């Protein structure tokens, strides 16, 4: 195909604009990466921009030498895996029965669940109820109240709807019950969506800190990594908390903070590009059928 000159110029402009967008997206991350790998004297003189100066891994070594930080990382990783598995299980057993049109009361249950997406009791009623159940200051408060998201359930259900009904009928004729149909037909055909939802749930838990901030005040062992970082990084509470974690020396603390940020970010950055094809489909389903 022959392109006119103006089209080619247009293409170049589009590519240039995209390059600018890429730059804007990556600059903050590159700056933090460079700072985490630089030595302190350059940092104090504000000489580190996008490339590290005085290249070294000391900050990473120091951060990994802090038991509290390593504990928080491991604990959050375990928490994330556990929550993701539980959430996937709950999502599947909630979405699957609702795909049966013959199910009596299915419509009602569906409305009953969707209602919670539009109207929520609010922060304080949740807090008071969890408090009255003695769930505050336990690990369960980070696991159970957020273990099923209506939005993700809708994505799962839409994906199940996409599987031809004839497959289910064939399985029923062969004598398979609903659970066997689910395990042997529906789940294997929904692997992409399961991967997407696993990513959504895992990212939500790994990045989540507001529930921990609200529900866990004294038990520092239960702080997920983001809350731990919040306590180190923010101006509001930095003094006391940072001192406790040994982050107070100027300059030195800077590289340590940046290294801590990198550790909390890298796991997600390693995973999401591989799932891109799947989550693009997942988001689209959720938006259309929501």
């Amino acid at each position, binding site marked *: 195909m022959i392109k006119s000159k103006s089209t080619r110029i247009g293409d170049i402009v589009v590519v240039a604009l995209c390059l600018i967008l890429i730059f804007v*997206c990556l600059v903050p991350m590159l700056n933090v990466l460079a700072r985490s790998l630089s030595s302190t004297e350059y940092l104090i003189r504000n000489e580190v921009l996008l490339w590290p100066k005085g290249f070294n891994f000391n900050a990473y070594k120091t951060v990994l030498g802090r038991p509290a930080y390593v504990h928080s990382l491991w604990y959050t990783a375990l928490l994330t895996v556990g929550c993701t598995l539980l959430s996937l299980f709950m999502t599947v057993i909630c979405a699957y029965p609702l795909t049966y049109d013959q199910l009596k009361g299915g419509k009602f249950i569906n409305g009953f669940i969707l209602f919670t997406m539009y109207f929520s009791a609010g922060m304080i009623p949740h807090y008071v109820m969890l408090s009255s159940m003695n769930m505050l200051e336990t690990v369960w408060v980070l696991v159970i109240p957020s273990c099923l998201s209506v939005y993700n359930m809708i994505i799962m259900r839409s994906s199940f709807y996409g599987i031809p009904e004839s497959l289910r009928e064939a399985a029923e004729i062969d004598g398979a019950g609903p659970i066997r149909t689910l395990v042997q037909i529906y789940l294997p055909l929904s692997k992409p969506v399961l991967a997407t939802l696993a990513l959504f749930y895992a990212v939500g838990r790994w990045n989540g800190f507001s529930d921990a901030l609200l529900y866990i005040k004294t038990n520092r062992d239960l702080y997920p990594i983001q809350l731990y970082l919040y306590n180190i990084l923010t101006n509001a509470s930095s003094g006391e908390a940072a001192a406790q974690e040994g982050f107070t020396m100027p300059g030195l603390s800077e590289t340590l903070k940046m290294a801590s940020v990198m550790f909390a970010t890298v796991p997600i950055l390693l995973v999401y590009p591989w799932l891109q094809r799947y989550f693009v489909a997942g988001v689209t389903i959720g938006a259309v059928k929501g």
Partner: protein
Amino acid sequence: MKTARAEKTINTAKPGRRGRAFSTYMHRYGTLYLLLALPVTFFIIFRYIPMAYILMAFKKNNIILPPWQVDWAKNNGFEWFIKAFKDKLFRRALGNTVTLNLLDLVCGFPAPIIMALLLNELAFKRFKKFTQTVLYLPHFLSWIIIASLALRLLADNDGLINIFYKQMKGDPNAVLPFLSKEKWWIGSYIALGIWKEAGWGTIIYLAALTSISPELYEAAAVDGAGRFRRIWHVTLPGLRPTIIVLLIMRLGYILGSEFDRPLALTNNLVTNVSTVLSIYIYQKGIKGGSQFSLTTAVGLFQSVVGVLFLFGANFLAKRFGERGIM
């Protein structure tokens, strides 16, 4: 075969027909109810029972007893709503919430549409995919991480941009107060929101774009339409339904308030403009004060107005002949 026979039995059996039908039905689908039992219990306990505690908004403040054992508040139970609206801090939080959400809507809503149009014009497949991957990255960062990135980038003294600015001006005291002056902070807050979510927002629009028939573009090209006229007359009309649905959801959120974002981005110099309703509730209810009744009332006000806006926007969309979301 088996299905047909089963139906026949149900239809012909006369004595105890309903009972038989019921037992056949349960035999076949009972497991489904068993599967649903756990999720439904979850929604009852963790979503509906908290709604009973909304009663606190109409009762005297009591942090020990459950609300059904407490006396009604003054003014027919509306004491706390009246108190909230007399509270200067609440009115400010309400104003901040609406201001930030409106700015988010005006600036943040078009951003992914424009980016999607740009990506759609990109002729090189591989480069397009790479660009998308990079643009999705910020969505996967938590607001805590973004707050620390923002500090490195925008801080008054050692932020990347201000380092350049000082060098450019040749004056070590020259400063662009991105995070320390209220008006600037609002701008940074909105810009960071766009930075985080605009790329992710393109996914939906790009998916909608694939359903536009290529014939339309060819016809437009034959008629001599250039790039911009094709975007205006073919691409944008194709996106219209998607835009409307997403706009409804955004409008329904006009009084909603995020928690992570303002909490992570705020600092002591800008609390006047950064305290939104969720932060107000957190500070008065949980962090200090234990004003459960007052904050529950504020939360209820927020939820109810949110639902009303959602229904209103949905109604309007249907009026204008769009599909709506409900």
